[in-house]
């Protein structure tokens, strides 16, 4: 019972967001100054955060975001509302990031079997679960964000992309599937593998740099 009410609520929220989108798009087509401001207010920050995490380079992310908004403004006439404005803009952002030089080189460097079942590739996991307590039991402070940034940079960009869309941009599996043009199962598997790879990278860097002072969970 409770879940069905919840579902109804979220459906209504989605419907009103859709109506808002179409209103905004109509105002953009008519050249309303406020609409242009609203679009930037809503999307420039998350689009930048997304591009930055995909490329890990501020100036390249800035270039990408400018390209994104140029495309959005120029092609707003073609937006038909078959996807939400949000997924449309993030999809353009991801595509533009793919075109960036940095992405291309990283991607080429890390050719692996991308969407095989994660159950088959568990060999490295044995190293992680050594003993009951993982060395990763830490609360992240600001300093450790740098570590996560580096770890994100080192994992396969295809997995990184899924994790970033899920955990940083905060999109649903359905939205991510639409943005990346892949199935829900693939989204699920990429997020799982991305998070595992990220955790592995972080554990590696924690072991390599014991001098880093970490705050144990229990000290909180």
């Amino acid at each position: 019972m409770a879940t069905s009410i919840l579902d109804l609520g979220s459906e209504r929220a989605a419907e009103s967001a859709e109506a808002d989108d179409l209103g905004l798009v109509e105002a953009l087509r008519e050249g309303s100054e406020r609409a242009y401001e609203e679009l930037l207010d809503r999307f420039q920050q998350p689009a930048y955060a997304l591009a930055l995490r995909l490329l890990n380079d501020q100036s390249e992310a800035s270039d990408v975001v400018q390209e994104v908004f140029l495309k959005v403004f120029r092609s707003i006439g073609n937006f038909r509302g078959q996807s939400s404005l949000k997924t449309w803009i993030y999809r353009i952002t991801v595509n533009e990031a793919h075109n960036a030089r940095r992405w291309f080189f990283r991607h080429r460097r890390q050719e692996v079997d991308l969407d095989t079942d994660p159950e088959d590739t568990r060999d490295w996991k044995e190293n992680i679960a050594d003993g009951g307590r993982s060395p990763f039991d830490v609360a992240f402070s600001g300093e450790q964000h740098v570590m996560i940034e580096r770890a994100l940079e080192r994992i396969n960009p295809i997995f990184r992309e899924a994790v970033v869309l899920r955990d940083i941009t905060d999109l649903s599996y359905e939205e991510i599937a639409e943005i990346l043009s892949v199935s829900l199962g693939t989204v699920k598997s990429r997020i799982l593998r991305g998070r595992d790879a990220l955790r592995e990278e972080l554990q590696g860097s924690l072991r390599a740099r014991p001098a880093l002072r970490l705050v144990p969970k229990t000290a909180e």
Partner: protein
Amino acid sequence: MSCDHVQQQISALIDRRIADGERENVRAHIESCSACQAQWESALSLRSALRGMAQTEVPASLAAKLRVLASHERVRQLSRVSLPARLRNFTAYAGLCFDNLMRPVALPFAGGVLSALLAFGLLVPTLSFPHNFVGGPTFFVEPAGSTVDLAGQTSEKINILAPRIQPVNSPYTGYTNVVDLTIDENGKVVDWTVVSGRLTEELNNLIVLSRFIPATTFGLPTSGKIRAVQGPIIVGPSYSFTVRS
């Protein structure tokens, strides 16, 4: 239920992408198994750390560029929409027309010395404070005169931080910050280059907030370049101008 299987489900559990019955089983295992508990907690803290990274601030220079881009694209869009749509959006449109009357002048790329001087003559007195030039040429003021709204700069006082405008090929240098602006045929700043120094907040405001009367070639609006400078006033003989409005 094996630890392997449970740890495989942690990612889906965090995202609530797991069937109800399965969820209860996985949860029960996590509560009773310290190894899986540790994995679960590390997955949670990783997720919250990543969520925290969503707050990344947009660099000021990007925000400024996006505003310029938006205002440029908006004018482009306005020129394409139908008249009824334009009338529906009358307030914004009227504002745009009004803005068009209130702009400094952009110099044409290749308008010859005389037209450059004319444009510059139009430009300089409108800044509302005395401007000094060493051995400067004679400036002409357009008989009709014009007023200008330069990012809200109307003070008679010389503010050291206030950006000033000069031709791109001006021989007067020594300013701390120098930025060349490209003005399109609609009077919008479409691009800029930092020639020296840096893009300060005042220069940034000038770029974002100022509207320019586009330069003209044979009576038609055209794109052009002007230079915005900021820093110590260059001292020289003083010229005065008549401003008519």
